[in-house]
């Protein structure tokens, strides 16, 4: 398990042991592990000197934090209103077909996850999606098929 206290120590030690570092701490830990396994919440709590309940409360409040592993490539479809009126739903449907998974799922080989998010701030280029930190803009169903041509997978149970 990558989530023992010793494994995380080098990351934790870059943060001061104060409650206000909690969100940055969680971001750093998730950056390393890809998600927040339940057992690390206690480690983070001890480091930031706050109760475990507060760590859980904060982690569950912000949409960035996840408690389950996700695919190596996180595909996020913008469902903001500017993208909605430019056909975001068709883009999502095409992605579901191309990746062979539904919104909220991860492919069995852990390559891709598919989710919807609120606006990603590229509304002038709608409809758009992000794959990791990269944004693909002005999408059409055809462009989606091309982008994910080799990605046909089966849904992760």
């Amino acid at each position: 398990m990558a989530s023992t206290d010793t494994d995380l120590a080098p990351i934790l030690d870059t943060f001061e042991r104060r409650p206000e570092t909690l969100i940055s701490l969680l971001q750093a830990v998730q950056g390393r592990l890809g998600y927040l396994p339940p057992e690390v919440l206690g480690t983070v709590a001890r480091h930031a000197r706050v109760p475990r309940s507060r760590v859980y409360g904060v982690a569950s409040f912000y949409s960035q934090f996840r408690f389950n592993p996700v695919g190596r490539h996180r595909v996020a479809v913008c469902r903001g209103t500017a993208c909605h009126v430019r056909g975001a739903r068709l883009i999502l449907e095409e992605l579901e077909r191309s990746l062979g998974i539904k919104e909220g799922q991860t492919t069995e080989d852990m390559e891709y996850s598919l989710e919807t998010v609120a606006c990603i701030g590229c509304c002038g280029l709608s409809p758009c999606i992000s794959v990791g930190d990269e944004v693909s803009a002005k999408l059409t169903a055809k462009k989606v098929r091309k982008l994910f041509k080799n990605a046909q997978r089966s849904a992760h149970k």
Partner: protein
Amino acid sequence: MTDKPPGTKYPETKILSRNFGVPESWTLKVARERGAYANLEKALREMTPDQVIDEMKKSRLRGRGGAGFPTGVKWGFVPKDSDKPVYICCNADESEPGTFKDRYLMELDPHLVLEGCLIAAYAVSAERIWIYVRGEYPGSIARLEQAIEEATAANVLGDKILGTDFSCDCVVHSGAGAYVCGEETGLLESLEGKRGHPRIKPPFPAVEGAFGCPTVINNVETLSHVPWIVEHGGQAFADQGIGPDPDDPKSMGSSGTKLMGVSGQVKHPGVWEFEFGITVRELIYDYAGGPLDGRKIKAVIPGGVSMPVLLDEELDVKMGFDDLVKAESGLGTACAIVMDDSVDMVEACENIAHFFADESCGQCTPCREGCHWIEKIFRRINAGEGTEADLDLLEHLFPQIEGRTICALAEAAVWPVRSILVKFRHEFEAKLVKTPVGAS
């Protein structure tokens, strides 16, 4: 205000956007060649903090984050003799659907943003600047961090700035995905490492903000206006845009320039800078290229998704704070979303309602429950299962949500959808379950 000769377009202005498109505009070298930090130096060497605040008041600059509060007045609220440290907080949480203006400033002119923050810090004797950037903007975060590093090395940021007694540092804080953290007190809670639950006001942040210390919170664009105002004086800024209504003593007008965006169903979405005075129609037709081929504009939300919609025949109103309020809408973030006649307005309502229901922080019952009720009712109507009673229920719900909550998210959730229900009621009625003939 700029007069528009007949047959010409309302002109663009390049004040905030003067460095957009300049190669490497985000580097200190290029920024300094183009004048960056000269106005910080002017403020530090030639002006007292109170003189800076006076110029800000004269400029009648109103906050660009949505609420339009006069910036100079806000700075004046900070206690002069505080025994606690004072902070500046730059609100870069830009998360409202359809809004993408602050991102241009941070990515293309991070030194302008920093210079504005620093002059603000000098004016209120702040020792630290926080820039709270939404986590979904890694590009903005990287540019700002690079700018901070370069500015510190050049001594325009940090200890004894430019050899004066003024010291101030700057920290970028990455948000973690919560629209409500754009609300200024939600932002403060988040900065303190907590859930972003907005606080009850008063106390206002200028008196009790981050970590209990006086804090000025301003939007990225608001702060980016400050260097120009220091350079040219508050009056020169106030002379631009729309003056106060002489018949209304409370009117503040809309002075200066503004970044305005258009997205949705237009030919050329984008962001431009104008002196206030351009109409919504000019913005959409002359700059964004008008509706897509063969389509007609059905509805426009002039700012983000939190303002009431305007119909095509209502677009001759000016993009201004008071003007749009008079038209029963609002400037909001000044980034308009255009919907054409292919849009199903009930589906648009469900989309908007889903956003707010998802983002409600849950502290206030009217917002937490109300936003979800609204969403569920729209979903029911879209599924063909709605009845006339659902429309009545919506009308009954709206006033029970509006004005009864800690922050303005709940109002933002009501305003656009209520206006759509009023202006497009027939579309909702067309989707209701048909009552069988003879049923009572």
